């Protein structure tokens, strides 16, 4: 029996309030169900790899940091690690600890950010406001430690630029305590709030086999039972000296991805406490040569979104010969088409949001074009998001009835 419903292509213009990044997916619909998805990436491509070849290593630390404004220290650390390996620099332990502390703080801010965005995508704006308000605690902490809320300028070749003073340590521990309480509440919400579970469970399914063959990384892969985490498998910075669990889940859907990120938040608080408790004395940097001797290295880093890979080739001058960046979201978008297959259009925004796409790391575009009855119509992302929220509301999922408790002031 042939399906007589028309194929509808729904475009979401590159302007969308949801993830604040220009994106374009081409979605073919049959009625309500998604038939196929085609990706068009490229709206955020700026030319950074070429820019790296034209700038010195030190300038590149700052350029590379701005590949992504959410996982900025991920890129900066991955880059300096590769250069330090080529130059055979022995980075002081204290510097490694500081890098790791900031890395975990970044993971915390990123996952709380994601929680809010996911809430927004399903129509749960209160969750957005709550989680972003809580997130301000870690933003203030990052500003205290590094001087900026984002793009910290923490790293230099050979170590870090700023030290953690003894006065800052109680503040770090205090924020970890506050956020741990709040995260426990969000976990409780995730496990008990029926409305949220109904909206997230069974959506965006990605089997373990598909996650592996399509190269998914990070929480997206771990929520499909793929037990991979660069911090444990290819330890860098101070991760070899702390103990932590790699959080995996078997739901293989958006709900699983939510649980994995919440679990990683709890692990992050534990890691930061261990690091602060065992922070070694000593210098925070070693002298690095201006001209890095010829050589090459691959550096891997577990960014909040997954494995970030940097390849650097040096040629004996003060500028790199080649810098290659493979950000985690590029690996994850390949899976999105699979996740959306046979799903409902109404679930598209949350499925895409669930891979926590950082399109500036990867620069992608999503456009879903609506050609009902042959007449092309453009929907914005917000309209599609609204459509999804209303569609689910008609089926009984209504977040306006959910009341959150306020919790401690961050």
């Amino acid at each position, binding site marked *: 029996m042939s399906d007589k419903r028309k194929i509808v292509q729904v475009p979401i213009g590159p302007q969308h309030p949801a993830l604040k990044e220009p994106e374009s997916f081409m979605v073919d619909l049959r009625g309500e169900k998604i038939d196929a998805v*085609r*990706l*068009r*990436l*490229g709206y955020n*491509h700026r*030319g950074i*790899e*070429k820019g790296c070849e034209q700038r010195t290593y030190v300038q590149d630390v700052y350029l590379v940091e701005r590949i992504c404004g959410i996982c900025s220290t991920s890129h900066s650390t991955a880059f300096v690690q590769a250069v330090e*390996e080529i130059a055979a620099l022995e980075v002081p332990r204290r510097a490694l600890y500081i890098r790791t502390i900031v890395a975990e703080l970044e993971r915390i801010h990123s996952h709380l950010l994601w929680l809010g965005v996911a809430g927004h995508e399903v129509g749960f704006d209160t969750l957005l406001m709550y989680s972003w308000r809580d997130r301000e605690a870690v933003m203030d902490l990052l500003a205290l430690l590094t001087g900026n809320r984002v793009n910290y300028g923490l790293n230099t070749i050979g170590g870090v630029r700023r030290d953690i003073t003894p006065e800052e340590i109680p503040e770090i521990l205090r924020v970890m305590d506050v956020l741990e309480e709040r995260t426990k509440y969000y976990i409780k919400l995730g496990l008990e709030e029926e409305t949220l579970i109904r909206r997230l469970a069974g959506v965006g399914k990605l089997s373990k086999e598909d996650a*592996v*063959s*399509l*190269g*998914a990384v990070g929480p997206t892969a771990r929520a499909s039972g*793929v*037990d*991979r985490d*660069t911090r444990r*498998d*290819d330890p860098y910075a101070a991760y070899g000296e702390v103990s932590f669990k790699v959080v995996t889940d078997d739901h293989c859907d958006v709900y699983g991805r939510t649980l994995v990120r919440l679990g990683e938040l709890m692990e992050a608080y534990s890691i930061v406490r261990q690091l602060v408790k065992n922070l070694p004395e000593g210098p925070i940097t070693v002298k690095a040569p201006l001209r890095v001797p010829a050589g090459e*290295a*691959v550096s*891997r880093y577990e960014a909040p979104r997954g*494995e970030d*890979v940097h*390849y650097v*080739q040096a040629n004996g001058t003060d500028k790199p010969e*080649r810098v*290659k960046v*493979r950000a985690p979201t*590029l*690996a994850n*978008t*390949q*899976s999105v088409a699979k996740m959306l297959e046979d799903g409902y259009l109404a679930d598209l925004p949350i499925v895409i949001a669930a891979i926590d796409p950082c399109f500036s790391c990867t*620069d992608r575009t999503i456009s879903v074009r609506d050609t009902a009855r042959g007449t092309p119509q453009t929907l914005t992302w917000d309209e599609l998001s609204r459509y999804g929220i209303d569609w689910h509301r008609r089926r009984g999922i209504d977040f306006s009835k959910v009341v959150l408790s306020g919790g401690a002031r961050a």
Partner: protein
Amino acid sequence: MSEAEAVRAELEKRFPYLAGAVRVQRAKRLWVEVDQAHFAEVFEALSKKLGFTVLCTITGLDLGADLGFIYHLARPAGLMANVKTRAPKGKAIRSVSPLFPGGGIFERELIDLFGASVEGLPPGARYPLPDDWPEGEHPLLKDWQPTSAGTGEKGADRE
């Protein structure tokens, strides 16, 4: 013998021509240099028989008359095998997307940014350059200058 050393021994046993071409940089980093003629069998052995089931990315290099390609493979548990090969500019290489469906996007990058020619890629949109990027301009080639495509210069696109 460390894990990396064990892999090197295994590679040199299977492919005697690789003697001297496999380098252990450190515990988790192997480098393998292989010519295009033997690339497919080495790559397949690593990914299918020796457990390197993760393709992290493919790096393109401009080596003058040739283009260089580094396939960054890894075992799920962390050991990386970086396979380097090269081909003259203009000569096509085979896509690895049959073995790694998610790897096509890395090859599209090579096509756009280096002008590489890749056979066997399934149809799909270009990446990462824009639709109106001029033909034949490949930004990551060493002799390519930004001004030749119009952007990057102050006021270039302001009419």
